[in-house]
């Protein structure tokens, strides 16, 4: 179990990168999280959902 659990593969302990724009400031990590949420939301809306034929049969 030792090496697997003793340290992360890519530990994020070094100081982060921050984006600045006027008074706005956001960490790279938070920006990635928020951007991912928007991407996932859009994908959830546009990606086709499996089982279309089955639903057509049950209309």
């Amino acid at each position, binding site marked *: 179990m030792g090496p*697997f659990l003793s*340290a*992360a*593969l*890519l*530990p*994020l*302990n*070094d*100081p*982060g*990168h*921050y984006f600045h724009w006027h*008074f*706005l*400031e*956001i*960490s*790279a*990590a*938070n920006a*990635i*999280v*928020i951007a991912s949420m928007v991407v996932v939301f859009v994908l959830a*809306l*546009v990606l086709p*959902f499996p*089982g*279309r034929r*089955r*639903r*057509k049969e*049950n*209309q």
Partner: protein
Amino acid sequence: MSKKAFRPDVDAPEWKGGHTPYDIIKEGTIAVVVIGLLTVLLAVVFGSPDVPAITIKSWSNHAPVDFATTALSELNGTSLTAAYGAPYNIQPASANQNLGPLKLDYWVGVHIPINTVTDFVVDPLKALPNQPVLHKSLAKWSGASASTRAAWVASYTKAAGKMKFENGQVIVNATNAGPVPLMINDLTMMARSGALDQALITGDSFYSTDYTQSLLFISDGSYLADVAGKQHLQGNQWGVMNETGSYPGSAWLWLYTFWYQISPFSTSSNADILVLATMIILTAGLTLMPFIPGLRSIPRRSRVYRLIWREHYRSQK
């Protein structure tokens, strides 16, 4: 009796269409497995942060002048804690935060009493054993009038701008400062030994889980804030959202911390209660969305729903 008009943003049509087979237990099981695996993957790859806590010992050894200066501010009543007001001590109502006529913290009053002179300086020093010179000085302090003590502290404060720390001693060239130089120096030595960390743990019990005094003392100094600043955790760095290192923080607090960055909040002494009041109003608005005309129409007017239910609308045609 006339039929009530159908309100498309409030009412929902009755579904008279078809149904499809749905395995709710299977869906739930798959979801838990997928989320569990994703969690394991993220934990294995990135781990989690654990920056060790600062102790008064580490603070006073790394930054002894900052510590001694903070100890002086506890004695002369200028520290954040000494001048805080409710719930720690009694100050004029203006020292607390007001929301118009509402002085909520002042009205609730002092429930966690802290006297920084006795709790942070005098009592911890009294607890040190076998210190005849110190205890004589403390007796001199206790026996003096309030005005005499104030004069001693003021003399020391005047000279403290040129404070130095050399050979393990706090050096301040103050005159007529009474026992204050010795008290500040000995408190610094006590801090550097680690004994002050223990002495400040709140309560007289052997077991205590309450670190109010230690945390207030540490946060009165600059050291904690300096370490936080290097990690982009300070308020004006949007620190509320951030985490140590490069880890994601509490991104969901973006709007809460946004207000602190702009006027009038950024320059107000009532910033906290003002921001909270603003967030309470906005949150109430979002919570009561079903009852707010206009805002509750945005989903229908924006037509994003046409993406969600596109198969349904196609089949209706």
